């Protein structure tokens, strides 16, 4: 099988790789959503993941995070095989995500929304010791995304951009090593996009590896240090953003 050879060549693992995906495949019935995806992400990277609608970006995220089970291939994270682990176990290992459409806990206040990953992920790792500490971190995290004044409000009182910030804050609360931001900026204005990008950059400076999935090219190009392109479930390009954008195959995929 030539595809296997291909993936081995692309997915060479170095000892600093945080995430390593080998030969990953996922199908829905007869539809092949992902085919032989190989991808390595080193610790501290800022990776942009782009592709047309339906190219398999979200499916890839779901396979990495355990929401979907991949039939083929393997995902390794921080030196551990993730196959067979539930989504919550992967979160505890340091793999956090935000959802494409914000999915807040609608009956809980913003502070309680943040409290959930603190109680169930951070506390489970044994790094939080008191209710006071949980309380402090809730407010600190809400402060970081500028939502502290609304700590006791419910998610339905939020604007679109605030909702996305809450989504990010909740993912950040789990203290991840790798954060996957799935279209965190769709539908936002320029200044709002800047806000989110600043937030992500600050997080990356603190040592969190970030995979940014985005349609807004301006945002992707300004944030990413490396760009991966998915088209029809296949990885067609991987490299420096400028070089990737000049790739004729990528141009063809985007411009038809």
């Amino acid at each position: 099988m030539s595809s296997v050879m291909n993936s081995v060549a692309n997915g060479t693992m170095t000892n600093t790789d945080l995430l390593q995906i080998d030969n990953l495949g996922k199908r829905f019935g007869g539809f092949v959503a992902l085919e032989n995806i190989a991808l390595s992400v080193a610790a501290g990277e800022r990776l942009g993941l782009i592709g047309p609608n339906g190219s398999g970006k979200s499916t890839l995220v779901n396979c990495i995070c355990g929401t979907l089970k991949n039939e083929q291939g393997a995902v390794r994270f921080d030196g551990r095989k993730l196959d067979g682990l539930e989504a919550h176990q992967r979160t505890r290992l340091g793999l956090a995500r935000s959802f494409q459409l914000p999915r807040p806990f609608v009956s809980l206040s913003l502070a309680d929304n943040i409290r959930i990953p603190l109680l169930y992920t951070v506390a489970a790792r044994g790094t939080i010791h008191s209710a006071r500490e949980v309380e402090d971190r809730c407010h600190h995290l809400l402060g970081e995304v500028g939502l502290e004044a609304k700590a006791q409000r419910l998610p339905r009182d939020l604007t679109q951009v605030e909702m996305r910030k809450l989504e990010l804050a909740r993912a950040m609360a789990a203290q991840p090593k790798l954060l996957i931001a799935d279209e965190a900026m769709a539908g936002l204005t320029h200044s709002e996009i800047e806000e989110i990008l600043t937030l992500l950059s600050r997080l990356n400076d603190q040592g969190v590896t970030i995979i940014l999935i985005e349609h807004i090219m301006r945002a992707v190009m300004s944030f990413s240090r490396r760009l991966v392109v998915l088209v029809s479930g296949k990885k067609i390009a991987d490299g420096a953003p400028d070089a990737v954008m000049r790739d004729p195959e990528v141009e063809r995929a985007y411009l038809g």
Partner: protein
Amino acid sequence: MRTPTFLLICLAIAAAVFAGSIAIGNDYVFFAGYVILQYVVLSTAWNILGGYCGYVNFGTAAFFALGAYSTVAIYKLIGDNELPHVIPIPVLMLVGGAVSAVVGLGMGYLTLRLRGAFFSIATLALAVVLETLVVNWDYVGGSRGAYVIRPEELPLIGSYIRYLFLMMMLLAVAAISIARLIEHSRLGYGFATIRDDELAAEASGVPTLRLKLIATTLSGALMGMAGAPFPYYIGYLQPDSTFGLDYAVNSIAMPLIGGTTTWIGPLIGTLLLGSLQQVATVTISSAVNLLIVGFLLVFFVIVAPNGIVGLVYSYWQRKPEEFVGRRHVDADAPGPVP
């Protein structure tokens, strides 16, 4: 308020109610009160899965009947001889609770991949399957039913119904305390995330399947415990009535009327609806009970969709849901994750 303080207050109220009922001097108060207390346990138990986690269980009667038939099985096992064959009610409750807990856990494993109406239908099916089993199981009376002879008098307390009433009262206190403890703990937060969005819950590190199994087991166990003394209360146990629709309907209606997101909702709903039914049984007819439930449900769905608790809070501060949002973790340390 800390849990021990809360428990003491509950016990004080329970003692006052018991003393008050004795003071009335008519044992019928105990017969009527027992049913209301039984529903306090059933609706509180239902609410742990239905209200906190958002999984609507139509199988209350199944768990209740499991508790009741566990008692019948034990009664038959010991035999109708002249020995003082009455096992203490708390022991029967523990056995009935254990049987129901196991079935609750099993039901959870089988059905919790189903959401919404599909889960509810599966619980309904469980009730039908169990009823069929009991009807065809001669040892516990089959379709003929089973007689359980209760002792006339007990030392200290007096008539046996007083003893049953007292035991059910203690179980109600325990159930309410457990529900309140859950609500203010990490487990309660986890349950709320399951109600809101399971995918997001998993992404936040909540082990949703394990939490749901805890909820079905606990909920089932409490329902079974409520059913265990029932054969001694009713004297003649029959599958038709033990698996009756009333239990499922009432244990859903009561939390809905009271309010599903807090421990006090099912309590208020039960005291209101349960008392009303008891009064109607005496003054009009017992057949009117389900009619009352129907009318009240329609009324509350229109006027107060968040139940009485939601109504009170919206009057008080015009933001009913904020009440839910302002819960705090009771424990000092987060402790091990369940």
